[in-house]
């Protein structure tokens, strides 16, 4: 049982999945930036809800999270943000488990998922929630028809892989290399071997961690992936914008054009 909007994103061609932290560096600017992703060809948007202890993120996204929190982002504002967002692609909420767990009066993830559903969120990626701890959230997602995407790491063995595939809905997030998020200059060999291992599983596979250029995108899709996830390379544009005090339009335009490049690379890889 998975979310049809997300299924659709993988239906015909490879899915391009950009990530940004909501509210980075401000609510208003961030709205424009996220909308630029859609214009640039996003098939799904992973929209980060910032948590104060982002243990899976490299410094680029950590800094984005700091900027967003300092800009006043809260869980309540995040839901408003999604409501205000004028895009036509499915939105996956990427956050850490404590924020999901704390929301609302009842204990457990149910209230958060209910609320997410009501503002139009289609699924979740929760980097600090391994299969072992996922049952309550998985159940809440099932109740509301949202996807829960699990991450497969280079260290994941076959036994765990089976379990992750069976728990995951929407797509699998293939972590391209060990470590934390962050843009790199090459594509890891581990990616290819991960994709090979997964070839027989019937679920879309999106590769993330370190993708930066159209060329990367092309190679990864050519290697068998169904989608690419790009975060830090995009966040870099926003970070630069804040440093040079650029007006919002400039980074937005750059974001859009990098998205186009990535998307084009992905399409090329699929040929």
């Amino acid at each position, binding site marked *: 049982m998975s979310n049809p909007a997300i299924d659709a994103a993988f239906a015909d061609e490879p899915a391009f999945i950009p990530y940004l932290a909501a509210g980075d560096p401000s609510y208003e600017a961030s709205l424009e930036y996220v909308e630029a992703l859609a214009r640039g060809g996003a098939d799904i948007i992973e929209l980060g809800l910032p948590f104060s202890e982002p243990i899976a993120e490299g410094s680029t996204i*950590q800094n984005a999270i700091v900027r967003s929190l300092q800009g006043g982002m809260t869980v309540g504002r995040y839901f408003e943000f999604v409501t205000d967002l004028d895009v036509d692609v499915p939105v996956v909420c990427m956050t850490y488990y404590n924020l999901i767990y704390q929301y609302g009066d009842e204990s457990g993830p149910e209230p958060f998922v209910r609320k997410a559903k009501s503002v139009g969120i289609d699924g979740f990626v929760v980097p*600090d929630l391994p299969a072992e701890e996922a049952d309550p959230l998985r159940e809440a997602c099932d109740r509301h028809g949202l996807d829960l995407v699990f991450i497969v790491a280079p*260290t994941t063995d076959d036994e765990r892989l089976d379990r992750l595939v069976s728990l995951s809905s929407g797509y699998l997030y293939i972590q391209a290399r060990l470590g934390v998020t962050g843009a790199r200059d090459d594509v890891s060999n581990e990616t290819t071997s991960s994709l090979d291992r997964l070839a027989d599983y019937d679920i879309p596979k999106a590769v993330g961690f370190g993708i930066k250029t159209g060329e990367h995108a092309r190679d990864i899709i050519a290697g068998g992936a169904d989608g690419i996830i790009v975060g830090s390379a995009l966040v870099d544009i926003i970070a630069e914008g804040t440093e040079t005090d650029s007006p919002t339009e400039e980074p937005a335009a750059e974001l859009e054009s990098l998205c186009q490049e990535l998307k084009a690379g992905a399409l090329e890889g699929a040929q």
Partner: protein
Amino acid sequence: MPETDTTFGDYGGQYVPEALMPAIEELTDAYERYVLANEDGFMDEFRERIHDFGGRPTPLQRADNLSERYDRDIYLKREDLLHGGAHKLNNALGQVLLAKYMGKERIIAETGAGQHGTATAMAAAHLDMPCEIYMGRRDVNRQRPNVFRMRINGAEVNPVDIGRGTLKEAISETMRDWATTVENTHYVIGSIVGPAPFPAMVRDFHRIISEETRRQTREQYGRLPDSVVACAGGGSNTMGIFADFTSDSPFSTAPDSNTDADEDVSLFAVEAGGSSLDVDEERGVAPNSASLSTGSEGVLHGARTKLLQNTDGQIMESHSVSSGLDYAGVGPELAKLVDDDRVTPVNVDDDAALEAFHRFSQEEGIIPALETAHAFAFLETDADLGEFVVVNVSGRGDKDLEAALEETAKRDLPNAPTMEVFDE
């Protein structure tokens, strides 16, 4: 094969990235085999090394002057005499040795005040393992002597520039390193926190404190104490001395507990009350570190536990005059024991801790760590501690001299020594 406590009631668990899960499974397996089942004589080697290298057993000493002051028999469990100056070595040595048994080639650890970092650096040098310590930039600058010690023992010290540059950031950063290097690296966590099996494993390395305390109280006093008092940051010295007095300890059902029920031993965990128990939700700051007393359930650094957070679930900045207590979370097992009413959480504020720091130094000739001073401050309580009290002296205060004097100078303490000897 004995099994790991992965949860303590609703607390505990393993909230970590998938990339780390295989390492955590491997660690769990190693913990069960080597620590719980003493495979290859691991625990024998650990005990021999913590004895010869660490200086165990540490004494249980009657504090004559405090006993007179409080009109009770106050005994001190002298973890301050352990190599490195705090209980921390029990755990650091245990984990580095375990890493060696597991065939790991590199050690990483986080540190706040630098005590866990120095203990880990010492253990790594002793066992000939390369070692890197993450430490917030602010702590690097505040805790120079401990940075010197780590470097002199041959460890790399990696300053963490993110955020406020303190312990919380250092832990997150060490997890990031681990997520990258997990195949050849072991992360030596510094307290009974983090994902399973860490809380149980760290407790088991510190359990020797309570094992000795049981034996020594019987030998020296003829019975178990009425109460045991320990400060609690993450809670490792705390669970270390409490472990064998709790009902799921192998000892509480052992023959030696027939004579006096372990439940009659009151257990007090003394947290840092900081400058106030009130929180500033707006700024995300709790001017204390009293997560057992005032925190709520949540997930931090891999485990579900009690923590200081705002209503959204964002972690708050904590505060204490003692950097070793300055942490927004606490060990999940302690959270459970508090819910079960087995452990009583109490707290004392910065002022009381500083006053106790001077009182204990002057009356007993032992300069305590500022963390430990919290436990002594609690002795001023009206609570009924009984006639025989054991206080865990978790560490010595040499690391805190400058900080204690600086904080003392800001206050009007009745028992503060003057420093005019430097004036001329």
